[in-house]
C-alpha cells in the first residue's frame, strides 16, 4: 500500500489511475473497482469512507520511494535476460506473463524484487480473488500431462496456458489427475543476477508507468 508491499496498486502517487478526484476515490472505497481484485467496502458508513479516502489521498503527498538502482542500465538487463520473451512493455514482447507496461504504478519495489528472486511468493490475485498465474498440472486420460498457468476455471472445466503460450481447454471429468502446484512458471533470477543487476532492474520496472510509447 505504501509502495513497499501489498498486492494492490501503489498508492503513493499524487494521481491515481482510477480516481482522478476525491469523489471517484470515495466511490472506489465504497464499491471497489469492477474487473479487478479491489473489493467494495459496503460496511463503511459515509464518514468512514471519507476518512479512508482522505488517508489514501494523503499517501500521494509522501515522497516517492528512493531506489538505489540505475533504471537505464536496468532496461539493458531486461533485454539481455530475455524478459521480453514472456512480458510485454509498451506493446513489445511476449504475452505469457503479465504486461509490465504499467508495473511501476501497480507494484512497489519490494514486490518487484521478490518477484524476481522468488517468483510465485507474492501471490497476486485476479479479479475474482483467485491466485493469478497459478501453476496447475493436469493428467489427461489419454496419457498426456499438461503443465500451465490457470487462465480460468469453473466446477466442470479449466483453461491453462503452457510455457509455449498454448491454451489448453480441459474437462475435469476427463482428467485422471489434477494438482494445483502453486509456484510460478517464471524462473527465479536469484542465481542469474548480481545485486547491482537486481537493483537496476527493479529501478527500471518501478519507472514503468504506462507512458512509454
Amino acid at each position, binding site marked *: 500500500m505504501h509502495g513497499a508491499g501489498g498486492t494492490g496498486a501503489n498508492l503513493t502517487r499524487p494521481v491515481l489511475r482510477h480516481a482522478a478526484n476525491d469523489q471517484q476515490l470515495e466511490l472506489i472505497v465504497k464499491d471497489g473497482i469492477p474487473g479487478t481484485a479491489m473489493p467494495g*467496502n*459496503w*460496511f*463503511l*458508513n*459515509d464518514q468512514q469512507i471519507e476518512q479512508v479516502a482522505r488517508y489514501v489521498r494523503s499517501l500521494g503527498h509522501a515522497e516517492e520511494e528512493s531506489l538505489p538502482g540505475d533504471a537505464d542500465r536496468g532496461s539493458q538487463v531486461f533485454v539481455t535476460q530475455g524478459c521480453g520473451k514472456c512480458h510485454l512493455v509498451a506493446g513489445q514482447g511476449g504475452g505469457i506473463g503479465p504486461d509490465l507496461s504499467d508495473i511501476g504504478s501497480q507494484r512497489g519495489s519490494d514486490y518487484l524484487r521478490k518477484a524476481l528472486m522468488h517468483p510465485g511468493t507474492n501471490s497476486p*490475485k485476479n479479479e*475474482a*480473488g*483467485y*491466485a493469478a498465474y*497459478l501453476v496447475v498440472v493436469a493428467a489427461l486420460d489419454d496419457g498426456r500431462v499438461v503443465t500451465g498457468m490457470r487462465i480460468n*476455471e*469453473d*466446477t*466442470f*472445466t479449466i483453461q491453462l496456458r503452457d510455457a509455449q503460450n498454448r491454451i489448453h481447454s480441459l474437462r475435469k*471429468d476427463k482428467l485422471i489427475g489434477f494438482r*494445483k502446484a502453486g509456484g510460478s512458471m517464471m524462473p527465479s533470477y536469484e542465481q542469474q543476477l548480481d545485486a547491482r543487476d537486481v537493483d537496476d532492474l527493479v529501478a527500471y520496472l518501478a519507472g514503468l508507468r504506462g507512458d512509454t510509447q
Partner: protein
Amino acid sequence: MNWLRGFLLVATAALPVAADAQVPYDRLVHADSGDANWLTYSGSYSAHRYSSLDQITKQNVSRLRTSWVYQIRHAGLIETTPLVVDDVMYVTEPPSTVTALDVRSGRRLWSWSPAMPREVRHIGFPPVNRGVAVLDETVFVGTLDAHLVALDAKSGAVRWDVVVADNKTGHAITAAPLAVDGKIIIGISGGEAGIRGFLDAYDAATGQRLWRFWTIPAPGEPGNETWGGESWKTGAGPTWVTGAYDPKLKLLYWGVGNPGPDWNGDLRPGDNLYTCSLVALDVDSGGLKWHFQFTPHDVHDWDACQIPVLVDTEFRGRDRQLVVMANRNAFYYVLDRSTGEFLHAAAYAKQTWAERIDEHGRPILIPGMEPSEKGTLVYPSLQGATNWFSPSYSRRTKMLYVAVRQMGSYYFKTDADYEPGQPFLGGGEQALSGDQASGVVRALAVDSGEKLWDFELLSPPWAGVLSTAGGLVFGGTNEGNVFALDDQTGKPLWQFQTGGAVRANPMAFAVDGHQQIVLAAGNAIFVFGLPEKQEP
C-alpha cells in the same frame, strides 16, 4: 373518464374473490400436487422447492437444451424465482420491476416498474428482488423503497400501493411476498441499518394492513428483557426471506435476521430475542405461537433468514410434523412445527464457533470466537454455511439438498453509533476468498442432517437447488454453470455454461406437456427443455 376509472378500480378491489379467479387460495394450498405451474416462491407452502414433473429424467437430461432466454433491460443481479400461472411467467428484474412473459416464446406481455426516488437505500445488500406472489388475479411485489404493490395479473396495472416502512431509515424489501387466504405476508430488510424488524400481513383486496409482528419485543412484552437498556430500539431482526405456511395448523414459519449492530454485541447485552430465530405465527392475528432461537446473542451476522422446510415424516419411530432448517450458523435443526419443541441439531458444514448444541437447542460456545479489533478467524464466514438461496426437499428420496458455502472469515469489531439510514454494524469481515474457499451441494438425511453425498463446487455458491420427480437436483455456480445431479448419488449428469454468475433459485413448470427448468444467470433468465423431436 378518470372518475369512472377510479370508481371501477375501487369497486373491483372491493369485490369478493371471483369464482373464476386464476389462483384462488385453495389452488395455492395444493400447489405441490403435480400442477404444471409454479404458484408460490418455494413451489409450495411447505417450501420443498420440489417439482412433481418427471419428464426430464436421469436418462434424458443430457439432451436438455435452451428453450428460450429472456434478457433483463437494466444490468444487475437477478435473484428472482419466477412464478408460472397458466402459461404466463412472472419474473422480477432488479431492482423492483415486474415482468410478465409468454412461457412459449419468452416474449414480454407487460412490465411494471415503480417510480422510486433516485437515492434508494439498500444498506448491506445489493439492489435485488427475489420474486412475486400471486393470489386470485393479482400479482404482489415488494419494492426496494419498501412499498408493497398489487398489480393486475393480466395487464400489470396497479391495484394498490402501500408504504410498508420508510426507506430513509434503511427499510427495504427484497423478499418475495407470501400469499395466503386473503392475506399478503411481507418481510422487511434493514438488518444492517439498525431498524426494528417486523413481519406484516396486508389485506390482499385492499392493501390495508391487518397485523404487524414486531421481531423485537417492546418493553413489557415477553422477550424485551433479553435486550440491555434501549438497545431493542435498534435491534434489527429483519425478515428478508420468504417463509413457509401450514394451512392446517394455520401457522406461518418465518426466519428472523441478525441483531444490530451486527458484530459488536457489547451494545446489546442479552440473548436478543427474536433475532436469529424461527417464529411460528398465527396467520389470522400475527400472534406468536412459539419461537426457537438458533444463535442467541449473535455476533457474526448469522441471521436465520433461510427457508424453513415443513416435512411430515417418521422421526425416532414416531410420525411427526417437523420443520427443518439448514441454518446460516452451519447447524441443521429439526423442530416439531406444532409446538416448536427442539428435537435435534447437527453441524452440516465446517464451523469453529460452537462445541455442540445442547439438549435444549442452545449452542455451547467455543471461547475466543467473537469478533475482535485485530480480527478473529471463524468458520463459517459472515455469509454463513448457507444463505437466502433455497434448499430442496425431495419427496422421492427423503433427502434435503443444500447449497453449502465452505468459507471462513476474519471478523472485526469496532464501535458503532446509530444514525438513521446509515450502516449500524460495529465491525466487518475479511473473508478467505479465492482458492481458500469452495462450495458443495450436500444431500442430508432429513431427520438427522447426516451427510449422504456431496457434489463439489469451485466456489461458495449463491444459487439454490431444485429437486424433481425425475430423480434430478438442479443448481448453479458463480462461474455460470447450470447443472443437473443424480438425486441419489450427486453424480453430475448435465451442465450448461450460461456465461454469467448464477445467483437465483431454480424452478420447473410445463407448457404444452413439456417440462421446463428455469434458472437466472448473469443478466438473463434461462429456460431449458428437452428437444420436442428426438434428435437423429
